[in-house]
């Protein structure tokens, strides 16, 4: 069985971030979808199965704290990485309940996207192994 290309959903209201990340990750071998809002993200997750979602905590229509549990409800297998501009991120209790860990938080900006890629692969591998 050939290895399946991981399907990643990028949820960020900043177009420059969505676009550059999508281009970088596609170049490095991922299948990438993007969503500019929480609602759009939920729609996409409902339609297609994704392996991992990179979620910005501040979105135009909702916060990451609310969005993540909803996404997980739609797709319990979905892996979550939080990508945020805030430095002092506190994992809310509802996120902890969903299994989100402090190590799942990556702060913007990252100096090198390769490091993000590495984090993504580690996350996927871990889940895969498990």
């Amino acid at each position, binding site marked *: 069985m050939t290895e399946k290309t991981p399907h990643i959903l990028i949820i960020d209201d*900043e*177009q*420059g*971030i969505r*676009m*550059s*990340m999508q*281009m*970088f990750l596609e*170049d490095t071998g991922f299948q990438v979808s993007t969503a500019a809002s929480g609602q759009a993200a939920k729609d996409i997750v409902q339609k297609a199965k994704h392996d991992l979602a990179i979620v*910005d905590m*501040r979105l135009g229509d909702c916060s990451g704290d609310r969005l993540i549990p909803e996404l997980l409800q739609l797709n319990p297998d979905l892996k979550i990485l939080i990508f*945020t*501009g*805030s*430095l*002092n991120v506190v994992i809310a209790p509802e996120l902890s309940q969903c299994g989100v860990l402090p190590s799942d938080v990556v*702060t*913007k*900006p*990252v*100096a*090198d*996207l390769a490091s993000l890629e590495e984090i993504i692969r580690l996350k996927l591998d871990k889940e895969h192994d498990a």
Partner: protein
Amino acid sequence: MELDDKRLEVRELEFRPVKGRIPVLITFLLGVLLIVLISAYTHYGQSTRQKYVTWTRLAVQIRSEATTGHLYLEEALMGSDDVTLEATREHWGNAQRNINLLLDGGELGEDRIPALIATDCREQSADVKRLLDELVNQCELRLEIGDLARAGTAYDNEFDLLYSEMDGNVAKLVSCLRAGIDHHSQVFEVTQVILTVILFLITGACLWLFAAFNRQIDKDIQTISATSEELNATNEELNSTVEELQATNEELEAQYAELTQTHDNLQTEQRERLELQSQFSQIVDTSPMGLFFYELQEDGDLVLLKTNAATNKILGVDCSQMVGLTIEEAFPPLARTEIPDRYRAAARDGETYYGEQVNYDDKVISGAYEVWAFQTEPMHMAVFFQDITERLRATEEVKALRQFLEDIIDSMPSALVTVDGQGNITQWNHSAEELTGRTTREMVGTVFTESIPALAGESGMINQVIHERETYTRRKLQLAFNGQPRLVDLTIYPLAHVDGAVIRLDDVTKRVRMEEMMIQSEKMLSVGGLAAGMAHEINNPLAGILQNSQVLEQRLSQELPPNVDAAAASGISLQQLNDYAQRRGLFKVIAAIRSSGEHATQIVKNMLSFSRKSDKSRSSVDLAKLVDETIELAWNDYDLKKNYDFRRITITREYGPGPLAVSCERTKIQQVILNLLKNGAEAMVETQRLRPPEFVIRLDRDTQGAWLVVEDNGPGITEEIRNRLFEPFFTTKTSNGGTGLGLSISYFIITENHNGTMEVESLPEGGCRFTIMLPWENGND
């Protein structure tokens, strides 16, 4: 005085001779007695002799009368005409009378004849009388017979025989009497001789004593003469005095006339005085002050004579019972004080005594008394006294209250100075001493504005406050005390009831600094909040910039297959595209975008440290060691671009003894120290031509915490810059400017993360001093 002495001497002289007189007098009287005795004896002897002579004469006359009678008888018988019978009888009668006189005594003419006392002679006299009587009888008989009895008759013979017997007896009688005379004469003479000898001796003794007495008298007379001379001299003086006195006397007489006139007035006055005296007694009795009258007796006892009613009331005992006691008996505790002697001096010498506070306690009477003692008349004195216990208590209370108020004033944190209407200092409290370094003793009494030259400009204001009675305030006056600049709040309050003012000086230097720090801290917090909000917003676009530039770079890369494919589809080789980008410097542009993005990222990160609370990665750090390590780091970190070489800077370390361990976040404190070193090094570049750059780094400790001082000798900073130095983005660096966050981040680390303090000041000789205090307990959440 002198005259009295002389009188005394004279009196003694008069008295002394009495002693010598008695023996003289006795001897003299004895002599006189003896003379009287001798005289009496002589008289007695002579009279005795005279008696014997008389008796002898009588006896002789008897013989002659009898012989004559005999003859006459014979003649008559013979018949002679010449002889009468009467004459014959007369002679015989005379003889008889004489013998009777001899025996019995009697009158003979005018003479008085005493009776014969000699016994032997009396017997013969008695015989004579008997014979004579016989003869007279025979005579008469013969005369009768006449012729018959004439001579030669028997009658005559018998008669003659009788007569012869009688004559013989008379002769014997005369002999006897003569023998008596001789005997008496002999005894008398012997006795007289003896008496004369005794008289002579007594006279001698008397003369000797008298001579001795005379000598004494002479001596006394000499003394008296001397005294007399003196007295004469005195007398002369007295005479002159007498003259003067006479003159005075005249005056006095004139005055006497006046006095006589005034005498009546005086009598009136005396009546009034008596009235006054009774009033005085009444005053004594009703006086609210206690009163004792004492008498000083000759044996030195000071005896209480009288008290008044107030005494009982004041002392709470019946003092009349003490009358008659000595002062020591009445008031035993006084015996241990000077008071009895003082009272005696008052009574004896009239020395007034005042006892401001006499404490007395004998269990019954107890209290403090104010006492006046004075002489009322010689050897008498009076004591006025009153109970001042209450007054003393009140005074003590006032004193305590005053002390209390002084303590309050002294314990005031403000320097409080009171001045009178002329601006003279009347009070100067502890805080004033501390603020100015001048003591109360040297300041009180001086003129305020002269003593505090820094406030000379306010003298007008002080006067205005005193006269208009309105408070005046000036805040944050910059003054210098003891060479130290101080910020002082000055308030001048007028005194309500008297001319004067209270000047209050509050050293607000620390408070102002604290306020500045608070303001700084608040700024930091608001910056922290702002930074936190901003960071998120800025990080997103930064992420966009950085990520897109990375993607751009990546998509020009030759290693990525899609790139090769896309280039081929575009009709160019990827190599050509790369050459082009290289030639046009596109890679550099991309790198510059990334670099700028990363710089911005760093700024945002730094800003976020204002909002980030401590991460609690604390450990005990030896500050000395940390400072040394950081200096090492700075050495290696020197930046040629920044125009300074850290290795050329002299570093003087003044560390206190022993390690200075403090709990802190090691890396952050290191960041702070490095920041200070870099800042100082940069600042000293400006002045390095004037003086070799030098850091002085001090470490010290006190009860509050550990102190780190970093001093540079750069140009220093102005007050304006000092106030803003810890503000974020405030910078004086013109070229290659830093972010302006270094010092503000340092400030934040010290004050917010470590609860410490951080201050900066400009040094008068140039340069800056940063002072950091890290408290021992600096836990922060």
